């Protein structure tokens, strides 16, 4: 059973990673990055690594998106 769960989570992660790298506009990319982070957390969880899943959630849900969005905002406010 767990093998199937891992397979499913791996697939989500693989697709999510491609979606993040393939999104050209950083503001949108940040949202997809958050989702990708969730998929990674689920994968870590089914791989029996709750510590790592917790780290990923701590970093990936709010802190990194906040930094990315602030950077995007700073850069967007001053168009070339």
């Amino acid at each position, binding site marked *: 059973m*767990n*093998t199937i769960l*891992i*397979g499913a989570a*791996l697939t989500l*992660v*693989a697709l999510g*990673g*491609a979606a*993040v*790298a*393939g*999104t*050209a*506009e*950083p503001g949108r*990319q*940040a949202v997809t*990055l958050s989702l*990708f982070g969730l998929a*990674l957390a689920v*994968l*870590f969880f089914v*791989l*029996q*690594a*709750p*510590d*790592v899943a917790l*780290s*990923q959630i701590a*970093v990936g849900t709010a*802190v*990194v998106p906040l*930094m*990315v969005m602030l*950077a*995007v905002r*700073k*850069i967007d406010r*001053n168009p*070339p």
Partner: protein
Amino acid sequence: MHWYAYTVAGWLMLVGSFGIVRSRDLVHAVVSLSVAQSGTYVLLLAVGYQSGAPAPVFAGGPAPSTRVVDPVVQAMALTDIVVSATVTALLLALSIQVHARHRTVDPDALTRLRG
């Protein structure tokens, strides 16, 4: 299943790097770099997995025994996540300054460092 987890790890490294190569925006490149790094977490945890074994956390979990998932790779992945977050922060800070000085974050338009 044997090869799938490792392949996904390699795939993430590849798509992340590919994202940087074809990036037209430094912030996008920085985020793509973090996708590439997530390949390393997946690889590490895949290496340490043991079918049917619980997590190496014994309080409120299984009875202490060595039949658990490898905790060493988890410790490495934890360190790796911290490193990734801090490096991403530094890179974003640099991107902000690149924009402040060059008025662009398009790598194709950053042409001052040549030769």
